[in-house]
């Protein structure tokens, strides 16, 4: 579930308020968006992808807000990882992060060959 909005990184673009399909965030005029309904989070990681500032962190537990340590999250390298691996924003032209989705068919084929 959604755990954290890192205020030092947030640019108050408020895109997360718009894009969250579960309407987890509230707009706070003149301030940072608020994680108003964390338990409505469906753990889909979409907000992380759309956050160009890499300021949002969704935990792995889909049933509970666990409570995380901001410093640990910042040090983990996880902030912005899905957006980067997806080749969004500044990563779009980076050859390391080009969309390899087409390889899925090969992955299945190679698994069948193992059996």
């Amino acid at each position: 579930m959604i755990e954290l909005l890192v205020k030092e990184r947030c640019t108050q673009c408020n895109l997360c308020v718009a894009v969250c399909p579960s309407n987890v965030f509230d707009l706070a005029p003149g301030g940072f968006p608020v994680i108003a309904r964390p338990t409505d989070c469906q753990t889909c990681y979409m907000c992380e992808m759309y956050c160009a500032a890499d300021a949002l962190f969704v935990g792995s537990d889909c049933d509970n807000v666990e409570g995380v340590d901001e410093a640990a999250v910042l040090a983990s390298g996880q902030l912005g990882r899905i957006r980067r691996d997806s080749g969004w924003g500044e990563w779009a032209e980076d050859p390391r992060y080009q969309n390899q989705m087409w390889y899925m068919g090969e992955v299945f084929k190679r698994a069948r060959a193992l059996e």
Partner: protein
Amino acid sequence: MLVLETDVLIIGGGMAAAWAAIAAAEAGAAVTMVDKGYVGTSGVTATAGPGHWFVPPVAEKRAAAVAQRQAIAFGLGEPAWMERIIDQTWRTLPTLAPFYKFCVNDAGETVYGAVRGPEYMRALRQKVESLGVRILDHSPALELLRHTDGSVAGAAGYRRQAGEDWAIRAGAVVLATGGCAFYSRLLGSQTNTGDGYLMAVEAGAELSGMEFSSHYTIAPAFSTMARGMSYAYATYYGADKKPLDLPKEAGRNRALARAMLEGPVYCDLGLMPQDIRDRLPTISPNVLPPFERRGINPFTDKFPVTLLAEGTIRGMGGIKVEDEGCQTGVAGLYAAGDAASRERVTGAISGGGSINSAWALSSGTWAGRAAARRARLLGVGGDRPAEALGQAGLRARRPAGLEAMEVIKTARDEAIHYDRNYFRTAQKLTRSLNLLDGLWESVTSGVQGDVVKAREAAAITATARWSFTAALHRRESRGMHARMDFPGLNPAYAQRQIVGGLGRIHSSFAFEKELVA
């Protein structure tokens, strides 16, 4: 209150809804889309890797693809409809190229069939916007409106961020609200609560194939991450951490469910070759982070797994469409994607990603086009009288009642329970239906909580009742529908089953009507 008129109203925000909006707008209609969430992130396509059934227009290749599917469709597939979706998908998917960067494989060829969900839905939104479609995000539809002649007049709902009601009169309405996963935690499915089924049935439409709602997908036990590919390299372990002896492919999930009824099941992905591990983040970027954030190495550690219920998402049941334009039994009301029954193209087993995606694209395109045609011929008729059709969860007989989430959890626990849903018997289904009928009775008298959740509670309860009624009535096992008390195929049931009704649910096969006649 926001009051609008539009030629075509699309309810939903996933891929079928987007393709419907595109087709209707390209046919010259003024189009409005309303979605519970956000068009681009809502629904199960946005979080997945939706492969599409993509077969070049070479007669032998097309015939072979259809024949291969028909052979495993358990007598419920229709080759003509399979051919239609293959052809439509082949023609339409590449038209997204100005908005979506299709993959290029190691041989330098463009690969159209395999797309990545977040980028695909982002591109679809951009295309929809480029065509001048009005999008209302965070604006769930709560009910349909109907003319006195029985045709659909529009819909009404609630803008949950603006805090106001909306009412939209339309010349035609497309329901592309997705399937129902019963709040199972399946990735991306929380907005897919069967709302379209409920609205359609309230308007007089019928459903088909609701018994085919027992598909499950493996995922880490703590997670929503139902991305199947990596599990092609899975080894499963029982509570004692010793490897489980499981059947290959077909039947494996059912065997896992049996094991899970006994105790915890663990897994590792140790068989995955190193080069695929290295490549995984750029194939499916969301698969590894849930493990990493929990300090799990899925290739070396044994992690607990669960089976997440797909309901009618990878199941096939949905609103019965009556013609090639995907019109339902109600004039002016069309259904597309997982909101519609997919039995014609999948048969009695799951369409997985690729056939379901081809169906969503194609049925969306056809429904959008047909809706635009109807609106052009008959106009919007916004000045004609119209009645609002929503009942359960919306218009209460009593002000108080059960809390909406309590209803949702009770219905969910019945609908997705492995023992009741995966290993069906008349006794278990009857017991569940008694409970669900009682729950429906309390829902119709009143639900506490916000109106959107209250309607979801009604839709989930109704969908569970339709599914289990159909499951009880199909007294055989066919495809994903497995009855422990009727283990074999019965040739008499090699046809579709129609379900409908709210207070009293009816279900029937064509052969029964013939017997009566």
